[in-house]
Structures are given as C-alpha cells and as structure tokens.
C-alpha cells in the first residue's frame, strides 16, 4: 500500500512527459521542418546574392535592401498600401451597418444571414474574382444594363472591388461579434437620456466596438496587401502590387534573394500593424 502511494506521482509525472512527447512531437516536427526552417530561409536569403541562372549564391550582400528603397519598388509598396487601405475602408463602411443589422435580427434569421455572409468565402477565390470579369468586361452585364461601353476592367478601382469582394466577410464577422456582445441597456440608457440615434452610435456603440473594428480591418488589410492573383486577373499584367512583384522575382526573374527581401518587407508591415492593433485594442 505504502509503495503504491509513493509510486503513483512518479508514474503520473512520467505519463505526462510521455503524453507530451507522443502528442506534440509529430505536429511540432512538421511545424519546424515545413514552417520554421522555410521562414528562416526567407529571412536569411535577404542577405545573399542571386545565382547566375536563378537560385542563391551564399555570399553576403546588402544589395537587396538597397534595391528595396529604390523608388521603383518603393512605389509598388506604396500603391499596395493604398489599395489595401482603400479596400479596408470601404469594407468597414459597408460591413459595419451590415453587421449591425445582422446583430439585431431575430435569432433564426441571424444564423441564415451569417451563413450567407460566409458561404461565398469558402469557395475558390479565383472563381469569384473571375465572375467579376463576366460582370465588368466590355460586353458584360454592367455595360449592357447601363447601355454603355465603358472599360471597367484593368483599373485600380477594379482591383479594390475584387479585394473587397474576396475579403468583406472577414470584416463583417468580427464586427458582428463585437456588436452582438454589446449590452443593449447601454444604448437604451443613452436614448432615455435624450441622445439621438446617431449620438448614441457615436458615443456608445462605436467606441465599445473599436476592438472588433480593428480586428476586421486587420483581417481585410493583411490578405489584400500581399495578394497577387486579384491584381493580375482584374488589373492586367503589370506588377502593380507587392504580391505580383514577389511572385515575379520567384517564378519569372528567378531572383530569390530579392523576392525574399520583398517578402520580409511585407511581413514587417504586417507585424507593425499587428502591434498597432494590439496596442489600440488594449487602450480601447
């Protein structure tokens, strides 16, 4: 009896170590080999030179970073920031009222409305972007309805429409959960104290949903910023966004080190945004 009491904690401790090993090692190995090592390679490639016929020559250089601040490439980064920011802003302006209405719906309709928001998101985004070509092209639906022959494709605005179409659900969902969590009594109190609907929104609803707003903006901005498929399908063949530029460095120019440096710039922008969001959410 005595020995049993003594032995149990030891075997439990061993069991825990064994459990941790059995459950964690396969997934963690996978993550190290296929995630952390590749990320380390992206990082390290930024200081190496390109090979003559593609690939990498492992000799130190700062040339990649010098090229990064070249106005030509910096301009692409700025355009990407602009288009992603515009997409995020429009998504917020449409997404907030939509999420607000969904949050007020009766329970049954709420589920239907939410599923209907997410449903397109779970289908291939190339197909969804492609659908816009049919809508917007010269003889497409929009022109025939308007009786015009406008060139609607291959403009920056078309890229914004495509990005918005792809990532709007990512704005609506966090906004919805933020609005849903609000205590309705706060709004009632505000109304009872004589505030108009808009004042209540400005002074009560909006400030309390700032974390949701920030999350939604981040969710839309991040995939928009690095996208290369949408600018290519809807924006023509020019490298207009960072994503296109990175893709071209890897698959066309075969300049992997510079491609990696551009990717590092992309990650850096995203990390800054993440930190800003975390900081703002804590203050809100």
């Amino acid at each position: 009896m005595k020995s049993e009491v003594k032995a149990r904690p030891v075997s439990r401790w061993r069991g825990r170590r064994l459990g941790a090993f059995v459950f964690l090692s396969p997934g963690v190995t996978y993550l190290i080999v296929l995630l952390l090592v590749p990320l380390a390679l992206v990082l390290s490639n930024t200081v190496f030179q390109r090979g003559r016929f593609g690939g990498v020559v492992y000799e130190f250089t700062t040339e990649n970073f010098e090229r990064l601040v070249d106005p030509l490439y910096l301009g692409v980064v700025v355009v990407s920031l602009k288009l992603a920011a515009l997409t995020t802003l429009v998504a917020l302006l449409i997404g907030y009222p939509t999420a607000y209405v969904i949050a007020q719906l009766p329970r049954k309709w709420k589920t239907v409305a939410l599923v209907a928001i997410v449903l397109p998101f779970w289908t291939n985004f190339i197909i969804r972007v492609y659908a816009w070509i049919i809508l917007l092209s010269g003889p497409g639906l929009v022109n025939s309805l308007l009786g015009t022959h406008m060139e609607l494709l291959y403009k920056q605005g078309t890229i914004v429409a495509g990005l918005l179409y792809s990532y709007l659900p990512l704005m609506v969902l966090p906004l919805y959960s933020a609005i849903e969590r609000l205590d309705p009594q706060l709004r009632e109190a505000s109304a009872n104290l004589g505030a108009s609907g808009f004042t209540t929104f400005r002074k009560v609803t909006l400030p309390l949903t700032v974390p949701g707003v920030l999350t939604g903006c981040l969710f839309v901005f991040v995939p928009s910023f690095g996208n290369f498929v949408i600018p290519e399908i809807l924006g023509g063949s020019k490298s207009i966004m960072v994503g296109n530029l990175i893709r071209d460095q890897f698959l066309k120019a075969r300049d992997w080190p510079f491609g990696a440096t551009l990717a590092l710039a992309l990650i850096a922008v995203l990390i800054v945004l993440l930190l800003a969001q975390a900081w703002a959410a804590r203050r809100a």
Partner: protein
Amino acid sequence: MRRSKLLFVPFWATYVFLYLPIVVLVVMSFNSGRSAYTYEGFSLKWYGELAHDDRVRDGLVNTLIVAAGSTVIATVLGTLLAVGLARHSRSKLLDAIALMPAVLPDLVIAIGLLLFYGLIALTLGLYSTVLAHGLFSMSFVAAVVRTRLANADTSLEEASRDLGAGPVETFIRITLPQLAPGIVAGALLAFTLSLDEFVIAYFTIGNTEQTLPIVIYSMIRFGVTPKINALAAILLLVSFTAVIAGQRMTKIGEARAQD
C-alpha cells in the same frame, strides 16, 4: 430599440454584392452561345465539353489526391497537436507557432516552402503540394479540435487517469470518441481548404502537374469561355454543399455534446 430603415440599404447591398457575380456566372454557364458575356439561350453543352477536357479531368484528379493526402496528414497531426497543446503543454509560444500557418500570408508560406524544397533539392510534384497543404490545414484542424476540447468535460479523462490508464489509452478510449464530431468537422474543413487553395499549390507543385484552381487560373489568362463558367458553377456547388454539410455536422455534434 429603434431600428433605422436606412441601415437596411447597406445590409441588402452587401448581399447583392456577394451573390450577384455568382448568380450571373452560374446563369452564363448554361449559355448556348460561344460568348461568356452575352446570353443566347439555355444549353448544357459546356458541361458536356467539360467532361471531355483532359486538362480539367487531370486537374480534378490531382486536386482530389492533394486534398485527400493533406487532409489525412492534417487531421492526424492536427488532432494530436490539439490534444498535446490543451492537455500536455503550457507553452504560449508553441500555441502561437501552431497557429502561424493559418495566420501568415499564403504567399510567404509559399515562397518559404519553395526555398526549402530548393535547398533539399526536392523535385516538385503532387507530394510537395500535399506536404504544403498539410501544413496550413493542420493549423485549422488543431484550432477546431481545440475549441471542442475546451468545451469537453474533463472529468471522464481524469477518472480514466485515476483508474490507471496512461495518456495514450485515455486518449484512444475517452478523448477521441468525445472529439469525433470536431475531428470530422476539422477534416471537412481541411479538405475544402485544400480544394480551393491556389497560391501555395501554384508555387509548390512544379511545372508538370496542375490542380484545378491552377487549371482555371491558366484558362482565364488564355481567354474567357462558357466552359470555365460551367467548371466554376460545379465547383461552387461542391463548396457550398461541403460548407453547409460541415455546418450541420458541427451543430449535430454540439447538440450531442449538450445531451
């Protein structure tokens, strides 16, 4: 509370915006004419042509192979990882790393893998894409299973341990049956994600094979025909069905868990 009628304008605009392009695409897939833009009458001929397109058929087979392979990897590793993180680890860092593949931009993952495959001189093909899809799908499976673990009753597991079962035995006899609906939902999610994934496959599959999204991408760049519309319509139907089935499954699972 007063609900402003004005708010319903952006609300409905959102839904029209989300569904109009899809509806037009599906309608145009039944076009009898050759144009992808002007509707001339009802016909199923583009669906027929699709059935005889070798590239589409090969793409479909490749897509299913990649989706099936990566789903197996993701489901097994993701489930183990979820249990490991929830029951056997307190590391916040490990938590964050496990979520990284789902959060990082796909382009960054794609080029990282391309660099890695280049370094170990791996010839690209279907298996390199299977491994890549397994990576981000694993994150999603782990997240879904963890949600269920967080809601699961731990007293059964504790009882099992107290009765002398080891962690593996407890997992197989107690935890796994409890988690089953979550694992199925995770697997379905992994499968759908892989079917639709483009960017990572585009970088990791090499030049000899194509998945369906890559086939569509190159078809679009070649020119627009109702054949792509028909293919797109079928894929939309498949995705919608899978998502709604997954939704149902999660609900049934939740209802069972509450009983």
